[in-house]
């Protein structure tokens, strides 16, 4: 990484830059933000999926019938730096079964089914007393053991991120509070009601990666959040935390766009932010880190926004991981008459769920219940007219119409060259397309097809190499055999001929 880029990155937040494209969307956040956070009552059953994010499932650590305490690990991921899944409350494990889990493809996964005993007893909590002076590796280990993942939606294992970041020299830790997708306000409520925890988490993460300064980035329409955070920062008496207000534009909360707005720099292809000396974490992740380090509590709950015209009283809720979504909707007064579709996530990047029995997972930042008047009628997909609107709004500076026809015509290598891998699937192009082409779906399809193609190629390359090696080996064997035969033949010919009549000399 060029030193000049790293130096420029040190000035993060001094002034604001622009990123290309983006959309100004209506927020729909007022209704939820007017009511305080409320905890959802413990449901009669909790379904804890062992697959919480990309990658293989965790291995169950408990058996059926076992009694677990709140915060006890129930699943462990094979890769050590990813961590664990914990029991959200105390109770008995009634089943470990495959069932439909909260997943974009509606897949089934292994779930630990927990029957709460109502006592909600924690395990023996072991806070790290003096985190300001312990080895940062200890902090990272605690993050790993607490099963903390990125709570902004991407659910990347936080300890893995911290581990990789420590290989580079991080000078700025950025806390991403720019919740840019409409309807979602869980981060905003968390920052309003628990700003001290967010600031504490920022300081702990800063120590973990040895950063020099911290920036907490929020949107300029989050009025009360700014004052709440300011109070928390002055209470904590730290001079190296800066609050930055960003212009409200979607998708500013994307890591690459956030860094571009704060520093004016683009992350070069194939590189990651730590190489520029920057590290981004979501504010909720920071709060979870604070709880894990100072209180010893692993990640067992999160703030979920339940909103949309399909629920009677939209609000933000504090829900245990594994709570069925129907319980959350009930806590909001239930469905309205014209509730039509259940979406996990926001209107731009969320996915529809088939059933409200699906559980809350670590990635569930919002439950959006759309009413029939929110959903546009299905409009037929027309041919692309090359109007260029999609390219105008793309934050990754791609040409979606080019990618579209390349994927449709199986030119996946060309699509990859045109930047298919850089697509952040924000949905801006989809939103503006006048021909109603489902562009993001095509790009997801294209990415998976390209991945499969690469696998196929690797396999056929391996098969070809093995075949060639085998051919070479057989050829070698043949040549060896011929050589030996010809040597034998020569040896026979060179021997002196036996004279006729002479008997062999043997013992008389």
């Amino acid at each position, binding site marked *: 990484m060029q030193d000049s880029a790293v130096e420029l990155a040190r000035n993060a937040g001094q002034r604001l830059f622009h990123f290309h494209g983006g959309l100004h969307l209506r927020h729909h956040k007022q209704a939820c933000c007017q009511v305080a956070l409320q905890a959802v009552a413990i449901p009669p059953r909790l379904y804890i999926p062992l697959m919480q994010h990309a990658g293989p499932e965790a291995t169950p650590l408990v058996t059926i019938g076992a009694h677990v305490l709140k915060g006890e690990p129930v699943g462990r991921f094979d890769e050590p730096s990813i961590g664990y899944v914990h029991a959200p409350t105390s109770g008995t494990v009634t089943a470990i079964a495959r069932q439909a889990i909260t997943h974009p493809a509606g897949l089934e996964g292994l779930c630990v089914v927990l029957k709460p005993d109502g006592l909600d007893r924690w395990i023996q909590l072991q806070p790290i007393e003096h985190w300001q002076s312990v080895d940062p590796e200890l902090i990272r280990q605690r993050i790993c053991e607490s099963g903390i993942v990125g709570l902004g939606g991407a659910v990347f294992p936080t300890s893995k991120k911290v581990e990789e970041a420590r290989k580079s020299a991080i000078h700025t830790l950025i806390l991403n509070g720019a919740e840019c997708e409409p309807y979602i306000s869980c981060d905003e409520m968390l920052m309003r009601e628990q700003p001290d925890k967010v600031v504490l988490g920022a300081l702990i993460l800063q120590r973990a990666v040895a950063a020099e300064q911290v920036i907490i980035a929020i949107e300029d329409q989050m009025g009360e959040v700014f004052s709440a955070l300011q109070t928390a920062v002055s209470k904590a008496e730290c001079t190296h935390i800066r609050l930055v207000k960003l212009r409200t534009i979607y998708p500013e909360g994307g890591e690459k766009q956030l860094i571009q707005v704060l520093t004016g720099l683009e992350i070069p292809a194939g590189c990651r932010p730590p190489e520029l000396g920057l590290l981004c974490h979501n504010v909720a992740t920071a709060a979870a880190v604070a709880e894990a380090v100072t209180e010893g509590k692993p990640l067992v709950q999160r703030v979920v926004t339940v909103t949309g015209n399909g629920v009677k009283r939209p609000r933000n809720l504090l829900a245990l991981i594994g709570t069925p979504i129907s319980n959350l909707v009930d806590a909001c007064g239930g469905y309205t008459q014209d509730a039509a579709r259940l979406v996990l996530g926001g209107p731009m990047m969320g996915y529809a769920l088939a059933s409200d029995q699906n559980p809350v997972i670590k990635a569930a930042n919002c439950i959006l219940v759309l009413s029939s008047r929110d959903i546009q009628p299905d409009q037929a997909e*027309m041919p692309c007219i*090359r109007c*260029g609107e999609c390219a105008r709004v793309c934050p*990754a*500076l791609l040409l979606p119409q080019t990618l579209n026809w390349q994927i449709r015509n199986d030119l996946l290598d060309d699509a990859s060259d045109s930047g298919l891998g850089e697509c952040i699937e924000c949905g801006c192009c989809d939103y503006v397309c006048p021909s109603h082409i489902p562009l993001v779906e095509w790009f997801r399809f294209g990415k998976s097809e390209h991945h499969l193609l690469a696998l196929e190629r690797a396999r056929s390359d391996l098969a070809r190499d093995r075949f060639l090696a085998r051919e070479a080996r057989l050829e070698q064997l043949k040549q060896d055999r011929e050589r030996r035969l010809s040597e034998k033949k020569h040896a026979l010919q060179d021997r002196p001929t036996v004279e006729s009549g002479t008997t062999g000399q043997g013992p008389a």
Partner: protein
Amino acid sequence: MRQVLYALCPGIVAYTWFFGTGILLQILLAAGFALLFESLMLKVRQQPVALFLNDWSAIVTAVLFALCLPPLAPWWIACVGMFFSIVIAKHLYGGLGHNVFNPAMVGYVVVLISFPQAMTQWLYPVSIAPTDIGFLDGLWTILSGQLPAGMTWDAITQATPLDTIRTSVASGHTIAEARQLETFGDLGGRGWEWISNGFAAGGIWLIWRRVISWQVPTAMIGSVILLGLAGYLLDPGSNPSPLQHVFSGAIVLGAFFIATDPVSGCTSPRGRLIFGAGVGILTLIIRRWGAYPDGVAFAVLVMNMAAPLIDRYTRPRIYGH
């Protein structure tokens, strides 16, 4: 697409005001033939007819084509033109979104080259016309191909302002002398400049509504002004002033409505600038040295051919690369 039609209305109103109702009949005829050919081709290609007709793109092609015709052109001109536009230039190349050439311009060019006489029977502006052609007389002329009794083509038609300039310069007069004729208004031809204003107003509204992008009109009109200025400064006698160029013929219509056709033009912003500049420059070259008085249609078709190449070399840089 419908917004494009709304934007064309001010110009069409001005046209009717200055040259009579013939143009409205041409638009109706062309639209009728366009819908007919479009439905036929969609059926033949086994595509949903109602869905694609609802797109209004065939009507836009028809209106743009009709605006290039003389108001009293016979009905079969619209028929032949729409056949070449819709059937050949649009559907035989793949239909909506796949045509390489601007369909309206293909139809116009075919008709212009094949029927030179019918395509040059331009009328006097109403204010200075020796004879008034009413609505019914116009309808009769269009449908039968013959003028009503008592009128002759020589009496009611005149050359367009661009044509007048060309013949005057060829016969040795200067442009200043030619501009003394009644057919000229302040900038371009009498009546034609107001029509251009109408189209410009509609075009600017389209830019504001984000239906078209600003690159093509700005580049095209900009290049016409620059190149026209160069010619005017070098030889005012035989080169019209830049503004006269802009307000004559189809430059304004072409800049906002024809060269901005997204399918046959470039997609990248820089590509659009080059495309627009190319159309403007080629138009002026054809006007000055070519055989036809107005070169917008030919310029657009030539640049359509170059569009994919321009796109390839003006691809924007991807984030991070």
